[in-house]
């Protein structure tokens, strides 16, 4: 079984890794006390997907508040995607935000700055 599921809580997002379609979903707030442990499986899933599969990888994100360690996890993941993109791999991020909450879009912009792969910030 290559799919990944991390149940969401008040302080952590729900995470769903769909291996067959190459999609990782994350939705919610992220301010757990143990970000690195909580996300270890997710980071490993992404690394393994990029290593073992040659299909495109898309991150579907609807994240609101991220604490500092969660920001670090996301940046590491985006950096890894960027490295793969530089060697010709197809990767993308779709970051969804509520149009009433422009602040989320501004934050997503910060992440986007360092990425040359398709990074879409989508209001809904």
């Amino acid at each position, binding site marked *: 079984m290559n799919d990944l599921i991390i149940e969401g809580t008040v302080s952590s997002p729900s995470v769903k890794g769909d291996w067959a379609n190459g999609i990782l979903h994350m939705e919610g707030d992220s301010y757990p006390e143990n970000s690195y442990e909580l996300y270890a499986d997710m980071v490993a899933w992404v690394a393994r997907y990029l290593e073992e599969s040659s299909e495109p990888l898309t991150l579907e994100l609807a994240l609101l508040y991220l604490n*500092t360690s969660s*920001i670090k996890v996301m940046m*590491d993941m985006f950096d890894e995607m960027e490295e793969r993109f530089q060697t010709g791999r197809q990767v993308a991020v779709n970051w969804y935000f509520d149009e009433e909450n422009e602040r989320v879009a501004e934050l997503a912009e*910060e992440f986007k*700055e360092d990425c040359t792969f398709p990074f879409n910030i989508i209001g809904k």
Partner: protein
Amino acid sequence: MTTDFTELEKTIQDILAKPEYQDHPASVALSKLWAVNQDQWNRMDRLTRLSDSYQDMMLQREKSLSERFDKHLRQLEKMTRISDRYQRSLRQLNIELEKTSLIDPLTELPNRRMMMRRLSQAFDYQQEEDQQEEDQQQEDSQDRPQGQAENHPVEHLAVAMVDVDYFKKVNDEFGHQVGDDVLIAIGKLMEKEIEGHGVIGRWGGEEFLVILPGYKIADAAIVMEALRSNVNAYSFQVDEKTVSTSVSIGLAGYQDKDSMDSLLSKADNALYLAKSKGRNSVVIG
């Protein structure tokens, strides 16, 4: 004098190649010396190559360390920037939330919670004044001949409970939307009246509370009477109808040992009296 190694090597190889010298002890020794020399050269060669590759490895390592350092620095800067953004937006949200938790959304006047806070501040100040007064009295009575002690009640805080008369009738006759508009308009009118004297807030329903810090009851009565009279004179146009209304006011002044509850309850009782006496009046409790 410098030695030409190429020439020397050639000379030695020529000697060693000559068959007639092969059994000569000097040729045998020279041949061994030649082998040792070759071995030394090879070893030197290996050492040089090793040293070069080691140097190369260190250069690579330094390069990758510096790349990693740059990457971490970039990440750190970005993280702090994103964190700062989050903190800034949280701070703004907190300010907005605090504001909405203290303001009545309809009239935009301070709400009951805010008024309780204001009253508590006025009370703290009042009680400090009381304490100072008491201390002063004790000092004075020590200086005064016995039997001449005086009691100066401190009365520099007044509160007024204001209720809109027959508000239910406005709602029934014109609808809740008009009722709301009337509350907003009266709120604005009264706020203008109270400005510079104290603070007015919505206490609940059609009831408002006025706090007049530093006001003696007689002065407070003048302010509240003016407010009552102005509300009475004011009328609102709704479609083609005119809505007139009035307010009943219960006024109470702080007296020694009053608590917030007892002061509010005095104002409440006075309001009840104003209502039962036919409304549109100020009653002092």
